[in-house]
């Protein structure tokens, strides 16, 4: 497949902060690629490096067969993350304005309908709700019917119904052959829309692949969550591994233990076990691993590596200082 986006070893630092560290990726024509990662991981910097709105310190990037600064802008659509267009233009005027900047633009009325803003078309941007504003911004990236679309957190602040409108829109664009690179904190969004997902942490793409492959490789096992005050020791005789997840993992309530590697068909045996040992519980819930587990596992691993590295560097510095003092 022809690569529409190709980045090799991109580097970018802001002072002491490393925003991108040897970040490489390739996105094929018609593919939807989602970048996920914690705040400050480098997602926006990577999008900027790929769209030519920041100059990387090292590495190379090509989009649509050209360097980002020299690409045919009629073929490119971009939604910056913190984009705030003129507030006193109506949604309709905004789309007409951005359409007016292109050689061959779509009818702004069609774009307005695509983003579900026909009824609010004459409302000034500053008077739209936050979700409507974001949808108008998404529309501004679509007016030129781009071949390559970069959407930096397109659904932030949009309510669930509006989010689904944007999702359907992106799916339609992808079906029509548009290549889409998007960033998101919404794992359901990435899982639903993306052909492939890249996880950025500390400026590096630590994992890339289809959501299914990533979940298989990094998502861990299925889990049965038992909301109970009992400690994992009370489950010592159960035939499955049991633990109480750290709070930082954030996917289970505080008063819960997790039974791992268990099929749904075996849930009855756990219920029998609980009743036999008179372990009180309030709720049972079973779940397959998903992209959020991948995110948490890899982000945690990267954070631990960073902490270890910093502690090691700090230890080295202390040793060196002690040596100098001696």
């Amino acid at each position: 497949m022809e690569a529409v986006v190709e980045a090799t070893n991109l580097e970018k630092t802001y002072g002491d902060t490393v925003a991108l560290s040897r970040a490489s990726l390739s996105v094929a024509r018609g593919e939807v690629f989602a970048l996920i990662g914690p705040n400050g991981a480098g997602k926006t910097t990577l999008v900027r490096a790929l769209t030519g709105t920041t100059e990387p310190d090292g590495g190379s990037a090509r989009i649509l067969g050209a360097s980002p600064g020299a690409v045919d802008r009629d073929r490119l659509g971009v939604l910056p993350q913190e984009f705030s267009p003129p507030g006193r233009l109506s949604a309709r005027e905004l789309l007409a304005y951005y359409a007016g900047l292109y050689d061959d633009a779509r009818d702004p009325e069609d774009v307005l309908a695509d983003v579900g803003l026909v009824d609010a078309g004459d409302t000034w941007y500053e008077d739209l709700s936050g979700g409507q504003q974001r949808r108008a911004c998404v529309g501004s990236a679509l007016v030129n019917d781009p071949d390559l679309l970069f959407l930096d957190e397109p659904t932030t602040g949009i309510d669930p119904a509006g989010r689904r409108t944007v999702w359907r829109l992106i799916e339609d664009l992808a079906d029509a052959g548009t290549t889409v690179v998007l960033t998101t904190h919404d794992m359901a969004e990435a899982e639903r829309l993306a052909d492939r997902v890249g996880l950025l942490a500390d400026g590096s793409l630590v994992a890339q692949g289809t959501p299914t492959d990533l979940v298989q490789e990094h998502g861990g096992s299925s889990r049965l969550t038992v909301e109970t005050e009992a400690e994992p020791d009370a489950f010592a005789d159960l035939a499955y591994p049991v633990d109480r997840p750290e709070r930082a993992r954030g996917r289970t309530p505080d008063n819960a233990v997790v039974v791992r590697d268990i099929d749904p068909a075996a849930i009855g045996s756990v219920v029998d076990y609980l009743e036999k040992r008179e372990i009180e519980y309030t709720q049972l819930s079973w779940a397959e691993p998903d992209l959020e587990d991948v995110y948490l596992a890899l982000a945690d691993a990267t954070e631990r590596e960073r902490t270890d590295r910093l502690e090691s560097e700090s230890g080295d510095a202390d040793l060196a200082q002690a040596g100098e003092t001696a």
Partner: protein
Amino acid sequence: MSRMGRVRAETSAGWRSFVRRRTAVFFTFFFPVILIVIFGALIRTDPTGEGLFTEPAAYYVPGYLAVVVLFTPLSRMGSEVARHREGSRFEKLATTPLTRGEWLLAQTAVNAAIIGLASLLILGLVILLTGAQIAFSPLLIPYILIGVVCFCGVGAMLGSYTDSQDGAVAASNAIGLPLLFLSETFISLSQLPSWFGPVVNLSPLTYFARGVRAATYAGAEVSTVAGIDPALANLGILTALAVVAFALGARSIPRTD
């Protein structure tokens, strides 16, 4: 879409955005009006024969016009650039076919329309309140247009090198006020220390003031430049400075973070 089409789209958006900010519209026109009312009253009631405002009222027409030709582009462009930067609008525009020069041209067109209207108001008020005897030279139009181009370029630079709207407005005031009074608008060169002369010659507004005065005030004592009519010669100098300021202003507009 042609270059003109892109500029038209940007101009249209800029114009609508401006006229819908009612306080901005009000104060854009109120500022020169209040200045004329104050200075006009001073001229009529306190002609002491020395110091400020001793010349006939028509002498000060370039000064009144300079209030809008200088201040409006400086403060509007400065804050517009800052507003665009804060809203990631340049980041967005950098990924469209619109160039920085086209963006500045569109903003300049918006400013030219505003300042053209304000200039008509000023000329009417000056005649009405001060009884100034003005020659309506067609050269007034290019002087105002080219002055706007020049100071839009300077304003774009101010907006680009300051880090906020507040900073841009403060910088435009800090630069605009000395320029307004030290460019032979309200204060003649003879009222300033002789060593200050070369500094006055560095201000683009000086050539605007000299040229407009030569074109509109029969009693003007403006020297010819290399034997050329001062109204035309100063327009030529102002044009050259405007081209440089516009080019530097367009170049200063951020395309990357």
